[in-house]
């Protein structure tokens, strides 16, 4: 019995979602009284830290084909067998989801993706209908694969670092070839951002985004936008949040000049705190907000910037 967590590395580094998955997995291991084993692909150089997030063992395997789901799922499945894992936990990232389904078939396990709480007995909860409801899934059989949503548990470092150990595994021939990887440099990618400043059609045009960028930069937030703003090319597509864009759950979401259509809310209503700035008192977004400011954004946002500057200086 045990829990195997796959920690996804990006160029040898680990993002918050990997720490969260490890911490979450260790909590399940406590529940079932088993071992927490972390598995990662790469040289394992930065994997020692998982020890302080609950890992009893840290395994790594250096394989270069970490983008091929056939290769990766085969390696994880072997590690899971070796660990005698009852649960296999992955972060609910694009890659995590692309691997999880393969793993479930390989291990003949049940699969629930995007869970947002720890299991309770043989049940586990996840969001459905784009965050408009939760569903409790009953797990059958004796092996389970789950992908865990960001911000489900706040990881706490407690114990000491562990010592990564290389394990040898056999891998199938890769069938996809990676030609190039383009990452958005500088800012934290939206799915991982703790603070998000988002703006909509109320901005009137792309030339007015200076105040949004300034506010975001000042507080270290990532920028986002509503769908029509991305569709008309005012902002790049990777900023589009909502039902048909990215679903996010930051600690703080600023919605500036966004009406709060149901499809927009579907992607952001799990934010811990929502601040809405809008000049229309009837804007539906106010109903989903924690704090609301009724006013002209071209007036309010510069004032907000000044207040944050004062706050930072104090």
């Amino acid at each position: 019995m045990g829990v195997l967590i796959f920690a996804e590395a990006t160029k040898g580094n680990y993002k918050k979602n990997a720490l969260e998955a490890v911490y979450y997995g260790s909590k399940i291991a406590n529940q079932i009284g088993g071992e927490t084993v972390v598995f990662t692909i790469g040289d394992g150089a930065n994997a020692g830290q998982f020890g302080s997030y609950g890992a009893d063992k840290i395994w790594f395997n250096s394989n270069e084909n970490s983008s091929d789901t056939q290769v990766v799922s085969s390696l994880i499945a072997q590690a899971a067998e070796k660990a005698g894992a009852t649960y296999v936990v992955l972060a609910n990232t694009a890659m995590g989801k692309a691997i999880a389904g393969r793993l479930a078939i390989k291990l003949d396990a049940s699969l629930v993706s995007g869970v947002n709480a720890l299991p309770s007995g043989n049940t586990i909860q996840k969001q459905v209908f784009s965050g408009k409801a939760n569903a409790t899934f009953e797990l059958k059989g004796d092996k389970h694969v789950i992908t865990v949503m960001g911000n489900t548990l706040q990881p706490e470092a407690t114990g000491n670092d562990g010592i990564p150990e290389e394990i040898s595994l056999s891998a199938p021939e890769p069938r996809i070839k990676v030609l190039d990887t383009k990452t958005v440099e500088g800012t934290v990618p939206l799915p991982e951002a703790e603070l998000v400043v988002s703006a909509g059609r109320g901005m009137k045009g792309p030339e007015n985004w200076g105040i949004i960028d300034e506010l975001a930069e000042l507080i270290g937030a990532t920028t986002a936008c509503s769908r029509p703003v991305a569709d008309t090319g005012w902002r790049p597509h990777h900023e589009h949040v909502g039902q048909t864009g990215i679903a996010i759950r930051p600690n703080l979401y600023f919605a500036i000049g966004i009406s709060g259509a149901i499809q927009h809310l579907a992607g952001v209503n799990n934010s811990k705190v929502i601040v809405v700035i809008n000049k229309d008192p009837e804007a539906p977004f106010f109903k989903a907000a924690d704090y609301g400011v009724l006013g002209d954004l071209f007036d309010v946002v510069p004032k907000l910037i000044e207040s944050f500057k004062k706050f930072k200086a104090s």
Partner: protein
Amino acid sequence: MNILVCISKTPETTAKISFSSDNSTFNTDGVQYIMNPYDEWYALVRAIELKEKHGGKVIAINVGTADNDIIIRKALAIGADEAVRINGEASSSYFVAKQIAEYAKSNAIDITFLGKETINYNGSEVGAMVSELLDQPYISYASSMEFDGTSATINRDIEGGVEVIQVSKPFVISAAKGLAEQRIPNMKGIMMAKRKPLNVVEPVACDDKVTISEYSLPPGKTEVKMIDPDNMDELVRLLHEESKVI
């Protein structure tokens, strides 16, 4: 070339979500259904474009009961050549994946298209399962695809960026925004769809590994606190002291 497109149905995006009084089932009363946007706007259209360029046929597949026929006809009206409905309740992603894989195996499918996720259960589970059952490469969240008849160059969305990959057929691909431009069915398409074959096939036996036992609505938001637009210092103070996010 045989191209399979998996289409699912989902409640229309503004549908009100409610449950039976014991919270065990989703209340379908008055709910309008649509074809899952990722399947319709991107996967299906890109598949049709490939056929238009390279020949072959596009087969739309759905796992579901007879009330899905209206959505399947829409796929035919947009331009699929034929359709097949696997006649069973889509009770879990494993059940659905198993049916699609069985069909793909016995019909020499070169490329299997899916949507990135259904917007009802947001699983993104079916595609990876189908590709494993078929022992084929899986390229998820594709936002563009060039194909030369044998091999494809695909941009796929990854966390905070894009990865460009190359793969040869057969493979399984899931469609994200950008893969194609939405097509609206025209009158001719709608008329032709009536004469195109919609085959109904019985499902293969398969036990679900998960079942949904209960639904709940997320806890409601507390009343919004309105802040004077001339007092942004107060907003900053609340974010720092009350909600502790800054």
